[in-house]
């Protein structure tokens, strides 16, 4: 009985790790631009958090008016810059996606099998 259970466990494990190679779906590494966007977004949210922290400090009297204004403006500008980068990267990305769609449909016409594997944008 224990041997059977153990063998079953081994079979399940092998099936689970082999699945990505056998299944019909393709996997790709997450695209660089997607990661960049996620990072930018997280960075922006961190800046927002800093701004609200500064506001709290200012309310408590930890910061002088001038310091508060200066720091807050700096952070706002950094956030806006990141927002700009975010939307720039989206524009570039969607253009690339269009190219990719064309490429894929071209390939589909050529072969019956969909090309497996990654494409690392």
């Amino acid at each position, binding site marked *: 009985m224990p*041997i059977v259970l*153990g063998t079953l466990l081994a079979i399940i494990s092998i099936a689970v790790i082999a699945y990505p190679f056998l299944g019909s779906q393709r996997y790709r590494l997450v695209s660089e631009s997607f990661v960049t966007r996620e990072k930018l977004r997280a960075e922006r*949210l961190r800046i*927002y958090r800093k701004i609200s*922290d500064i506001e709290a400090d200012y309310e408590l009297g930890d910061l002088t008016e001038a310091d508060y204004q200066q720091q807050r403006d700096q952070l706002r500008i950094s956030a806006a810059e990141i927002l700009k980068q975010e939307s720039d990267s989206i524009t570039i990305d969607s253009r690339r996606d269009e190219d990719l769609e064309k490429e894929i449909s071209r390939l589909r016409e050529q072969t019956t099998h969909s090309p497996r594997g990654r494409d*690392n944008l």
Partner: protein
Amino acid sequence: MAELGFMALLLGFALSAYSAVGAIVGERKGKAELVVSARRALYMTTLTVTVASVALIYAFVQNDLSIAYVANHSNTLMDRAFVWVAFYAGNEGSLLYILLTLSIISALAIWFAPKRLARSMPWTIAILAINQLFYFGVLTFVASPFELLDTVPVDGRGINPLLTHPGMFSHPPLLMGGLIAITIPFAFVSGALIAGSYGDDWIDVARVSAILGWGVLGAGMLLGAWWAYTILGWGGYWAWDPIENVALMPWLVMTAFIHSIMVQKRRGMFRMWNVALLNTGFVLAQLGMFINRGGPVVSVHSFAASALGVIFLTFMLASLVFAFALFLWRMPQLKSDRAMESFMSREASFLVNNFLFLAVMAVTLWGVLFPLFSDLARDVSVSVSAPYFDRVNGPVLLGIVVMMGIGPLLPWRKASARSLKQWFIWPTVIGVITITVLVALGVQRPVAIFAFGVVAFVATSILEEWWRGTAARYHAGDNWAIAWWRLVNGNRPRHGGYIVHISILMLGLGIIGTNFYQQRTDGALALGESLVIDNYRIEYVANGDSSRPDRIAKWAEMTVYSIDPDDYSQEIQLSNAQGSSGFTLRDSQTRPNDELIDRIETWHGFYLDFNMASVRSGIRSTPVEDLYVIPRDFLSDGRISLAVSINPLAWWLWASGPFFIIGTMVAVWPQVAVERKPARKERLGSSEGES
């Protein structure tokens, strides 16, 4: 079940090896399927360890004595409720438990990792897999909990009697879990560094996972202290034993880390420093594992010496080399965004606090290693124990409490005179008043009085900040409770930290009280006799037998009276002349002002198979002081030998626990995002999801 457990561990060994190799190769060659498969393999190790653990627990429940580990840690007499304790009571089982924890938290960490870390995840997976591989290897080939005995014994050896206590259900698992949990932030940060991600992308994951591990480790240590105080029956709670020290050291370094990570979060500074701290914490956790497993120092806690020592030493040295080689390789990229602007800034105070934590760590490490050093250098054995650590670490710990008051009062960047004066005035006044009052009351021990002043200073600084923040919101129209809660919610890391600081202050009160003002006396009482100490009279009123096949045990009941010293002036004079702190009364006549305040029960058992005594102390606990009665022995003439102590403020040690846990939870609870909606939703929508 032994076969199943063994197969599961072997399978886990293969899976984790595959996961490590697959993640690295997949990343280098850009093969996404391989990375996905490696990640899945790491999920599967969780399943195999769980199966192995269930198999072992099942064997315990069945009392399957053909398995050596079960036979050594269980017997037919053992209460089945203690199966969970027996599971990790020995070397092999505790390693299995550690691996179980590691695999579960690894799986959770990978599952919840934010997408922006996608580039470094293969490396993180590989590091986690290698750590698991190590434990799988040890459990499969060196210290298997599923080893079979050639001849099945009639009965098992039974569980160590010191472990049959409710505290044992949580203290060892929390401690081991907290130590191994440091692997998670380490894997995230190392992964990010290898992948070449130098920014702050990893900061939130590292912070949250580090605080969780840190909180668990801290709670584990506190529970251990509580267990020692209530069960071990030696009247103390922290002995600076090597095993306690090796749990404390990584905790101290992680404490430094979770403070200085805030500087990186807020000001973009200390990146290099934070990575170094995390590496140090990880390596110290490995040192803890090593010393725990047949390391070279003596301790009450250590598992029986085994060949494992060398293996764990090798793994520790390997992690040391890896962590710091990686650090040196990536150091040039870990620049600070900004520079320090003033000594009187929160950044600087965090740096000083970091230095103090590291100093306690380094001094403790030195104390742990000195006997070894002395042995090697000149072949002379020495002991380094509590009196040494109290002396060398006490002052630095007090310094940390001082910084705990000063640091949060200093604003970021630099302090302006106005804000400083405004902030420091009340804490300083209250601190000075506390010291003055204590001196006026004739309290002894200047160091302790100073320490009380420091505690008052820090407490006031926290309350003051809460008061101001709450008052501002109160005037804006909230009621007090809501106003306070909003304040805490507005910046959870900070205010959660304050709650933890309060728990540390409570701990501090207990430590000062018990270390400086403890009163003790010993005595032997026959039934009906009393022992008098300070304002207490303890009368021995009843006893009984509670032996079982495996132990000789007796309980004793005492009544506690509060007394008026005037009633006993003669005896007190006499005992003072003899140099005693207390005295025994042969008659048990109640004097006019005696007042019955409590009944306490103590218990003393001797376990034949283990040749080991275990006691339950009788404790009457109040916030002011504990009356603590240890039954040392039942003497052959029918008397009971007692050690009685009065431990001032000991209650606060344990009261700090809930605050510690609540504060930690508040600090890591997900922050409310300031952002309301994903910016430019209409444009983001088109490209989300990478297909």
